[in-house]
C-alpha cells in the first residue's frame, strides 16, 4: 500500500512515535523513563507541526515552525524541572520506582 502524500507518511511516523512514547510513559516503572516517554510524545507533536508547516498553504507565515521552536524551549524547561523533581523524590524516598510511590503523605 503506497501512501499518496508525503505529508501522510510524516504524520504516520509522528503517530507511531507518539504511541511509543505514550506506551513508555504508561508502562515503565522508573520515573525517569516515564519522562523519556513524555519527551518522545512532545517530539512527535513537533514533527507534526513541522510537517504541516512544510506542506501547508502558507509556509512563509512560519506558524508551525514557531510553534515547534517554542515547544522545544518549553520541553527543555519541562525536562529540567521534571528531572529535578525526580532527584528530590529519590533523595526522600530512596527510589524512583513509581509503583512504590503510592502514598500522598510522607
Amino acid at each position: 500500500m503506497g501512501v499518496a502524500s508525503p505529508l501522510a507518511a510524516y504524520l504516520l511516523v509522528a503517530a507511531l512515535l507518539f504511541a511509543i512514547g505514550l506506551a513508555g510513559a504508561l508502562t515503565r516503572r522508573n520515573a525517569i523513563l516515564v519522562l523519556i516517554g513524555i519527551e518522545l510524545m512532545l517530539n512527535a507533536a513537533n514533527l507534526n507541526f513541522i510537517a504541516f508547516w512544510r506542506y501547508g498553504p502558507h509556509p512563509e507565515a512560519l506558524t508551525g515552525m514557531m510553534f515547534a521552536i517554542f515547544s522545544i524551549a518549553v520541553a527543555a524547561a519541562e525536562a529540567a524541572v521534571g528531572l529535578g523533581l525526580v532527584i528530590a523524590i529519590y533523595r526522600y524516598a530512596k527510589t524512583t520506582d513509581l509503583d512504590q510511590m503510592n502514598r500522598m503523605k510522607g
Partner: protein
Amino acid sequence: MSVVFYGIAALTVAGGLAAVLLKNTVHCALAVAVAFAGLALLFLSLDAQFVGFAQILVYVGAVAILIVFAILLTRGAEPVTGGVFSKSWLVGLVIAAGVFAVLGWAVLQSAHALPLVTAAPAVTVQDIGVALVGRYVLPLEIVALLLTAATIGAVIVALHEKERTR
C-alpha cells in the same frame, strides 16, 4: 517517498522503541538520544534547517545529558529488581495501541485530501529571527520568563537542604 526518508523514519522509530523496551536505564537514555537525532534528520528532510539544528543542540546536547545525569544521581543504572514494567502494563499498552489506531486511521482516511509535493519554502534564518522579535515577540518574552523560572525552580527543587548542625 524516498529511501532516505524510510531510512531516517526507521532509525527514529527504532530509537524510540529501544528507549521504551530496553532493560538498562542508561541504554534507554542513549536510545532516546538516537530517536532525537533521527527526528532532527526528519526536520532537515522537511527543509526546516534551523529547527533541526536547534533540536540537536537542545535534545541531544542538553536533555539527553540531563537524563543520564539524573539516572546516575538516582542510581538508576544498577540492575532493577522485579521487572521494569509497571503492574498495570497491559492497560497502558492497550491505551497506547488504541491511540495509535485512532491516529493512524484518521491519517489514512484523510490521505487523499492531503497536499502532494510542494516546492520547498524559501525561509532563511533571518526570516525566523525577524518573526521571533516581530510578530512572536510576546511569546518569546514569556518563554524567556518561563525558562528563568524553570531554572530557578529546578535548582530549588533539587537543592539539598543543609542539615543544621549548630
